[in-house]
C-alpha cells in the first residue's frame, strides 16, 4: 500500500501522462525499481522494491543508499560509487552486486540503471532496476560452491587424484597426486597418464603398457576400476605401489562420459607389509611344517586345528585324520587329564606356558612319551584364541630313563644283596659305601665301617698285600688287583678274604673311587690247609705201600711219582716226569687203546687197572698197571689225576701160566670127552658083542642040559651048572659095566627135580624086594634140586637095594633125610643092616670091589661105584659112616644149584 502511495505521489508530482501508465507498469513489475535523485536520494520505489528490501517506500523516500545497508556499508559504497560513475557518464549502467535483501540473505543481483533527464534535458536522477539473479548466481554460486567443495576435496584428499579428459590426458591433478607420483603437477598435467611418465608395473611385476593403463582399461571396458594395483618403479629399483580406482565423469542425464577420474593411494607400505606378512607367514608356515618338534594349534575346546608333518609322524595319523580330532582321543588313557590342571593355570593367565610330560597313543596302538609345551595365542584383549602345542618325542628318553632307573635299582640291589662283600673306597682309602655282606664278613656294623680304612682292620702280616699292587692299578697297567689276605674282625677273629679291586674312573679317565669285592674264603683256606695236610699224609702213606703213587696235571703230564716206582720196577721215574704216559712205548697197546685211554682222561673219568707193558732198558719187559682218579679243585675245575701204580709183571706171568694151564685143561677136557665117547662106544659095542657069545654058551649049555641032561653022568650036570652060571655072571658084569660107563656118557641135563620123586621111583623098582623083606623105607622132607632124575633114582635104588641086601636080623629099616648146608645138601640113607668095617669105607666105592663072596651076597660090586660116579657127576661127594652090626649111613652131597623152591 505504501508502494501504491509512493508511486502515486510520484505520479502526482508530475503530470498524469503516459508516464502514469508507465508508473503503473513499473509499480506492478516484479522487478524492484527505484528512482534516485541526483544527490542519491530515493525518490520512489515500486512494490517489488518494497518487498525485496522489506522497507515501506514512503518511509524511504529521501533516504540514501547507505540507509539501505546499515549492516553492509560496502554494498552502499559500491552503489554510491556506481551512481557517481553513472552521473559522470549518463546513460545506462549494469553491474552485478550482492545485496542484502529483506530476508537478511545476500542476493546476487544485477543492477540496471539509467539516467533520466528533466524537461530541460538535464540529468535529473536515475532509475534502477534490480534483477535478482540469486538463483542463477545461486546456481552459479552453488556451482562454484560445489566446485569449490570439490576443489577442496580434490586438493585436500590424501589420495592422489587425476582428472582425465576424454582423450585420457591428465587435465587436473591434486597435490597428493603430485606427492605420490613424485613429479610436479605442471609436468604431469597434459601427460597421457602418469604411466607415460614413469616405468610402471602391474601388481605381478609385469610392465604396464599404454594399453593397459588403468584409465585405458576403464575406457575400454566401460567399467570403473577399483583397487587396481600399479607399481611405479623408482630409480633405486624400489617400487611405489598404488591402488587405483577410476570413475567416469558423465554429464547429467547422459550415459556418455567426457572424462575420467582416477584416485590412487600409496599402498607401498601396505604392500610391503603384506609382502612381509606373506613372507613371514610363509616362513612361519615353513617353520611350522618343518619343525623338528610336533606343532599343533589346538582349539579352546581341545581339537586339533592345525598340525605339522612332524606331529603327524609322531602320532601316526595323517593330517586329515588329526585335524578336528580331540587331543584326548590320541592321549594315553592314563594321561588323558594330565594337561587339565596346568592348562587351567594357563587359561587363567597365571603362567605364560606350561610343560607336561604325558603319553600319547599312536594310530598303531603304540605308546609315545612326549614332552608337551603349551602356550596360548591371545587376541588384543588377552583372551585366548587357540593353544599352540609343541611336542617332543621323549619315548626313547623315557625308556632310557626307565632303563637307567632300573639299572640303577638293579645295581643298588646287586650291591646290597651280593653274595660277596662289596665296597666303594674313596681315594683316601676310606670306606665310602659298604653292603650288608661286607659288614657280615668283616664283623663291623655299617656305620662303623664307613670312614674306616682297610689298613685299620687288616691282619698285620698282610698289611701291604694290596698296596704293592695299587700303583699299577691306578697307572692303568693292570685293571684289577686280586689278592688273598686276612682281616681282623671286630671280635678279633681272623677272616681270610679273596679281595678283588678295580678303579672307577670319570669320563676323563681320572680315578673317582675304588670298587672292591670281598669273598670270605676262610673255610676254603682251612679246607686247603686240611687238604694239603691230608695229601701230605697220603703221600707219606703211599710211600709205605707196595704200590707207588703218581700225580698228573690237567694236561695229563706226569708231575709226580713216588720213589717206590723205581724201587719196584727198576724203571727211572724221571723218564716219565713231565711226559704223558703215551710218550713212552707200551708193547701191548695199540694207538686205539691209547686213544681210548686218553678219551677217558679227557672226560675226567676215573680208570682202573690200565695195563702197560713197558720195555726194560736192559731188555725184557715189565708190566705196569695204573689206576687213577680225577682231581678237582674247590671250584670244581679239573686239576689233573692222581692214583697208584703197581708192577704186575709177576701177576702177568702167573696169568700167562694160568692161561696156559687153562688151555691145557681145555685140551685135556676135550681129550677126556673124546676118550669118553670112545669109551662109550667101546662099552656099547662090548656089551653087545660080548653078550652074543655069552648067550650062546649059556643057552646051548642049557639046551644040552634039557635034551641030554638025563644022559649026562656024574658031575657033568654040576659042571654045566658052573658054565651057565659063569656065563650069567659074565652077562651081569657086562651089563653093570655098561651101566657104569653110561653114568657119565648117557647122563641127562640137570633139571630141578623133587628129590623124593627120584626116591619114590627107586622104591617102585625095588617093590618086590621091599615086600619080600618086609622092609620099611621112610624119608624126611627132601629138597628140590637140579639133578638128573634117572641117575638119582639109580643112586637111591642102588643104596636102598644094598640096604635091603645087606640087612640084618630084624626088619630092615631104611630112612632118608636131608640136611641143609651152606652151599649143598647132605642126603643120608641110613639102614639097620650088617654094617661095614671102617677099613673098607674107601674100597667099597671102587669098581667090582666086593666084601663078600657070591655065595654070601650076590652082586657084581659095581653098585656103589655107580653111586659114586653119579654123585660125582652131580658135583658132590659120597662117603659112608657105619657101625658094624648096627647099620650103615651112606651120605652124599648135592650142590645147591639155585633151584626154585
Amino acid at each position, binding site marked *: 500500500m505504501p508502494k501504491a502511495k509512493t508511486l502515486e505521489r510520484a505520479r502526482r508530482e508530475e503530470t498524469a501522462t503516459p508516464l502514469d501508465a508507465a508508473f503503473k507498469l513499473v509499480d506492478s513489475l516484479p522487478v524492484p525499481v527505484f528512482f534516485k535523485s541526483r544527490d542519491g536520494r530515493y525518490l520512489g520505489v515500486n512494490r517489488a522494491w518494497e518487498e525485496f528490501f522489506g522497507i515501506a517506500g514512503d518511509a524511504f523516500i529521501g533516504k540514501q543508499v547507505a540507509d539501505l545497508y546499515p549492516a553492509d556499508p560496502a554494498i552502499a559504497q559500491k552503489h554510491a560509487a556506481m551512481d557517481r560513475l553513472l552521473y559522470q557518464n549518463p546513460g545506462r549502467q549494469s553491474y552485478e552486486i550482492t545485496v542484502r535483501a529483506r530476508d537478511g540473505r545476500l542476493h546476487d543481483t544485477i543492477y540496471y540503471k539509467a539516467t533520466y533527464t528533466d524537461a530541460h534535458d538535464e540529468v535529473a536522477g536515475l532509475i534502477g532496476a534490480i534483477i535478482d539473479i540469486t538463483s542463477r548466481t545461486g546456481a552459479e554460486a552453488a556451482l562454484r560452491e560445489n566446485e569449490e567443495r570439490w576443489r577442496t576435496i580434490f586438493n585436500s584428499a590424501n589420495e592422489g587424484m587425476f582428472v582425465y579428459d576424454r582423450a585420457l590426458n591428465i587435465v587436473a591433478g591434486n597435490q597428493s597426486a603430485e606427492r605420490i607420483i613424485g613429479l610436479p603437477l605442471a609436468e604431469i598435467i597434459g601427460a597421457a597418464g602418469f604411466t607415460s611418465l614413469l616405468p610402471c608395473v602391474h601388481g605381478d611385476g609385469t610392465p604396464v603398457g599404454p594399453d593397459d593403463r588403468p584409465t585405458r582399461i576403464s575406457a575400454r571396458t566401460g567399467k570403473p576400476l577399483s583397487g587396481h594395483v600399479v607399481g611405479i618403479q623408482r630409480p633405486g629399483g624400489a617400487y611405489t605401489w598404488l591402488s587405483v580406482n577410476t570413475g567416469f565423469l558423465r554429464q547429467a542425464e547422459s550415459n556418455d562420459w567426457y572424462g575420467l577420474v582416477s584416485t590412487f593411494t600409496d599402498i607401498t607400505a601396505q604392500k610391503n607389509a603384506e609382502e612381509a606378512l606373506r613372507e613371514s607367514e610363509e616362513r612361519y608356515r615353513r617353520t611350522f611344517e618343518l619343525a623338528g618338534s610336533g606343532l599343533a594349534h589346538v582349539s579352546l575346546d581341545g581339537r586339533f586345528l592345525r598340525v605339522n608333518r612332524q606331529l603327524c609322524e609322531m602320532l601316526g595319523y595323517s593330517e586329515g585324520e588329526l585335524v578336528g580330532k580331540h587331543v584326548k582321543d590320541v592321549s594315553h588313557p592314563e594321561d588323558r587329564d594330565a594337561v587339565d590342571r596346568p592348562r587351567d593355570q594357563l587359561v587363567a593367565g597365571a603362567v605364560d606356558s606350561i610343560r607336561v610330560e604325558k603319553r600319547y597313543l599312536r594310530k598303531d596302538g603304540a605308546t609315545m612319551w612326549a614332552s608337551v609345551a603349551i602356550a596360548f595365542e591371545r587376541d588384543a584383549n588377552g583372551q585366548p584364541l587357540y593353544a599352540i602345542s609343541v611336542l617332543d618325542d621323549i619315548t626313547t628318553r623315557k625308556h632310557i630313563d626307565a632303563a637307567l632307573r632300573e639299572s640303577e635299582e638293579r645295581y643298588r640291589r646287586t650291591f646290597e644283596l651280593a653274595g660277596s662283600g662289596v665296597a666303594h673306597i674313596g681315594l683316601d682309602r676310606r670306606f665310602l659305601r659298604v653292603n650288608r655282606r661286607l659288614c657280615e664278613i668283616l664283623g663291623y656294623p655299617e656305620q662303623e665301617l664307613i670312614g674306616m680304612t682297610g689298613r685299620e682292620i687288616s691282619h698285620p702280616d698282610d698289611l701291604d698285600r694290596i698296596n704293592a699292587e695299587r700303583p699299577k692299578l691306578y697307572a692303568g697297567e693292570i685293571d684289577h688287583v686280586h689278592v688273598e689276605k686276612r682281616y681282623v674282625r671286630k671280635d678279633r677273629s681272623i677272616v681270610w678274604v679273596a679281595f678283588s679291586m678295580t678303579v672307577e674312573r670319570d669320563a676323563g679317565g681320572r680315578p673317582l673311587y675304588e670298587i672292591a669285592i670281598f669273598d670270605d674264603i676262610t673255610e676254603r683256606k682251612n679246607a686247603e690247609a686240611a687238604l694239603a695236610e691230608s695229601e701230605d699224609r697220603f703221600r707219606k702213606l703211599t710211600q709205605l705201600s707196595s704200590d707207588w703213587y703218581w700225580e698228573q696235571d690237567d694236561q695229563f703230564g706226569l708231575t709226580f711219582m713216588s720213589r717206590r716206582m723205581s724201587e719196584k720196577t727198576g724203571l727211572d721215574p724221571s723218564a716219565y716226569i713231565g711226559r704223558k704216559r703215551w710218550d713212552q712205548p707200551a708193547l701191548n697197546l695199540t694207538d686205539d687203546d691209547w686213544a681210548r685211554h686218553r678219551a677217558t682222561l679227557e672226560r675226567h673219568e676215573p680208570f682202573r687197572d690200565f695195563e702197560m707193558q713197558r720195555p726194560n732198558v736192559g731188555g725184557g719187559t715189565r708190566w705196569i698197571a695204573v689206576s687213577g682218579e680225577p682231581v678237582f679243585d674247590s671250584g670244581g675245575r679239573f686239576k689233573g689225576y692222581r692214583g697208584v701204580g703197581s708192577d704186575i709183571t709177576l701177576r702177568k706171568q702167573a696169568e700167562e701160566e694160568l692161561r696156559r694151564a687153562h688151555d691145557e685143561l681145555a685140551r685135556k677136557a676135550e681129550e677126556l670127552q673124546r676118550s669118553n665117547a670112545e669109551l662109550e662106544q667101546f662099552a656099547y659095542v662090548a656089551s*653087545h658083542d660080548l653078550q652074543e657069545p*655069552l648067550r650062546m654058551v*649059556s643057552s646051548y649049555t642049557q639046551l644040552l642040559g634039557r635034551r641030554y641032561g638025563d644022559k649026562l653022568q656024574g658031575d657033568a650036570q654040576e659042571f654045566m651048572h658052573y658054565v651057565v652060571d659063569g656065563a650069567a655072571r659074565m652077562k651081569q658084569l657086562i651089563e653093570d659095566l655098561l651101566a657104569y660107563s653110561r653114568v657119565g656118557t648117557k647122563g641127562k641135563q640137570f633139571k630141578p627135580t623133587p628129590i623124593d620123586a627120584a626116591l619114590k621111583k627107586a622104591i617102585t623098582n625095588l617093590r618086590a624086594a621091599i615086600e619080600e623083606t618086609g622092609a620099611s623105607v621112610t624119608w624126611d622132607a627132601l629138597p628140590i634140586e637140579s639133578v638128573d632124575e634117572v641117575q638119582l633114582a639109580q643112586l637111591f635104588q642102588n643104596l636102598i637095594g644094598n640096604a635091603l641086601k645087606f640087612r640084618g636080623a630084624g626088619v630092615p629099616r631104611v630112612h632118608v633125610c636131608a640136611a641143609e648146608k651152606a652151599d649143598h645138601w647132605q642126603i643120608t640113607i641110613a639102614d639097620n643092616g650088617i654094617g661095614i668095617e671102617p677099613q673098607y669105607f674107601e674100597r667099597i666105592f671102587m669098581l667090582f670091589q666086593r666084601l663078600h663072596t657070591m655065595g654070601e651076597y650076590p652082586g657084581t660090586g659095581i653098585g656103589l661105584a655107580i653111586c659114586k660116579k653119579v654123585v660125582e657127576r652131580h658135583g658132590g661127594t659120597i662117603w659112608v659112616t657105619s657101625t658094624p652090626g648096627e647099620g650103615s649111613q651112606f651120605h652124599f652131597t648135592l650142590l645147591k644149584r639155585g633151584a626154585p623152591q
Partner: protein
Amino acid sequence: MTDGRSPIEILLVEDNPGDERLTREALKEGKVYHKLHWAKDGVEAMEFLQQKGKYKDSPRPDIILLDLNLPKKDGREVLQDIKSDETLKRIPVVVLTTSKAEEDVLRTYNLHANCYVTKPVDLEKFIVVVKSIDIFWLTVVTLPPSGQ
C-alpha cells in the same frame, strides 16, 4: 588068524647060527604051524624079501624076526628098507636083539618096527619069549592079508 591049512611063513634074519638053531627049537615047541626061513645077513634078507636071485620063488613072509646087529647090511637098515617098501611095510617086524640100549629101542620104534624084544640070556626065558611071539603075533593078532 590062520586057517591052519597053510603054514605061517616066518623070516628070521639072524647072523648067529646058534641063535637061529635056538629060535628054531623054540618055535618047534610052539603050537603054530609055520615055516621058518632064515637069512644070514641084511643083504640076504632083502634078497629074500624082494624075491631076488635064488629067492625068486620064495614066499612073502607073514612075519619077520629081525636081529639088529647084522653083517653086510645092518638090521636097522633092513628095517628101514622094509618099512619104506610099499609091498613090504605091512609085514610085522619083531626086532629080536640082545641090545637093551634105550637108543636102540627108540630108534627101532622110530623106524616103525612093530615091536622090540630083548633076547634073554637064559634059555628057558628065551623059549618063553619066542613062544610069546608065536602066540601073540601068530595067534592073537590079525596079520595083514597076504596078497602078492
